[in-house]
């Protein structure tokens, strides 16, 4: 516990969830302490990035928000980029889990799509810092993150491809090999631009538009509009 000598008064500045562990011999298992530090660093990075943008964020910003020492930072991460990647992966895993669960809970495909979109909007709106980190800042965080960002978005394509199952030949003829990619890209573009404009709290109100946009190619605009508006 190398940083236990830092002033403990410092911790009063931070909200309770970021409060330091008691210094010295607190009797907590080493593994617990380490994980707690790692999580705090990731939360600290998200706050620092929300404040300064990715490019403007320094390791000093991160450690200040996380209330840990610089040395602790380097025990967990080799660089700011590495810390960002960890944060990004955490957000995307959580987003993926929530969307997947919401989707699986509905038997009817159009309703499952609606539930998945609602889960995505709900999570991003509730976590504005993480929303910005994953949907906006990720784009300038270097090729490693950009690759993961693209993969995460392409991953959403499979939820839509499931909608082809059991459709008539006429409907299928109206879909091209890139329909799903274009739908996902269009939705992500709408979402990202709201987040960029600091209108993350309005994301929930996009639900009917996004649902109608996404379902129309499969079930036609009249049915899609009905599900979009009435759930």
């Amino acid at each position, binding site marked *: 516990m190398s940083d236990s000598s830092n002033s403990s008064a410092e911790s009063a500045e931070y909200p309770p969830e970021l409060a330091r562990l008691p210094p010295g011999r607190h009797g907590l298992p080493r593994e617990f302490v380490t994980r707690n530090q790692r999580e705090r660093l990731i939360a600290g990075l998200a706050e620092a990035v929300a404040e300064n943008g990715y490019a403007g964020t320094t390791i000093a910003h991160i450690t200040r928000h996380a209330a840990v020492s610089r040395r602790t930072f380097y025990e967990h991460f080799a660089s700011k980029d590495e810390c960002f990647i960890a944060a990004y992966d955490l957000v995307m895993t959580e987003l993926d889990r929530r969307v997947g669960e919401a989707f699986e809970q509905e038997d009817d495909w159009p309703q499952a799509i609606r539930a998945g979109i609602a889960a995505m909007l709900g999570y991003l709106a509730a976590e504005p810092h993480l929303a910005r980190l994953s949907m906006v800042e990720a784009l300038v965080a270097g090729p490693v993150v950009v690759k993961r960002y693209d993969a995460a978005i392409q991953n959403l394509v499979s939820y839509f491809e499931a909608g082809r199952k059991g459709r008539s030949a006429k409907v299928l003829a109206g879909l*091209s090999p890139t329909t799903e990619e274009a739908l996902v890209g*269009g939705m992500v573009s709408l979402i990202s631009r709201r987040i960029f404009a600091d209108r993350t709290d309005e994301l929930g109100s996009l639900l009917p538009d996004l649902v109608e946009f996404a379902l129309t190619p499969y079930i036609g605009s009249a049915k899609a509009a009905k599900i979009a508006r009435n759930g």
Partner: protein
Amino acid sequence: MRIINGLAREASEKGYRAVTVADIVRRAGIARNTFYENFSSKEQCFLAAQEYAMGSALEQVVERAGSIDDWPQRVQAGLAAFLAYVAAKPDLARTCMVEALAAGPASVRCYEESLQAFVSLFKIGRDVSPHGGELPETMEEALIGGVFWILYQRLLLEETDQIEELLPELVEFTLTPYLGVARARKVAAEGSAAAPRPQPRGRR
């Protein structure tokens, strides 16, 4: 122009953030002084690149499509001009269509302006559509976002040569909400018959 191309090439290789003025200067084959005679910073150079690219892309769209009265044909011609531009300038296009969202407020403003230009072109479709009044408010933004995303994916995979082949599916994708599948397909098919690029393409 050499400087802007230098920035675009470097940015598409390693990402905008990692690019330094030294990289741009080396790639463009110019002196550092020359860079600073033209731009005060990398950010300013990026913005200039973006304004240049978006400006000339829209110019070509208007030139090719602006005088066509029939709206579906105008969309078809406009998309064809846009795809041709992206295929000719892949590095610039890639930098502008996605990274701009994270490259600072001025870049985002420029991105939004060019997106709105396309939104206005598509909004006309509401007057042509039998159910134009019922379409979701944000639909045009989503359609264009979808087109940009498809193009960006092709650029990332360095499938620049396949970009213009996407024309029929993108025409169909963007016209369908207004005209229904059957009419949208017809316009798309006629357009590609007029300018054939017959090459079967696999599913990526």
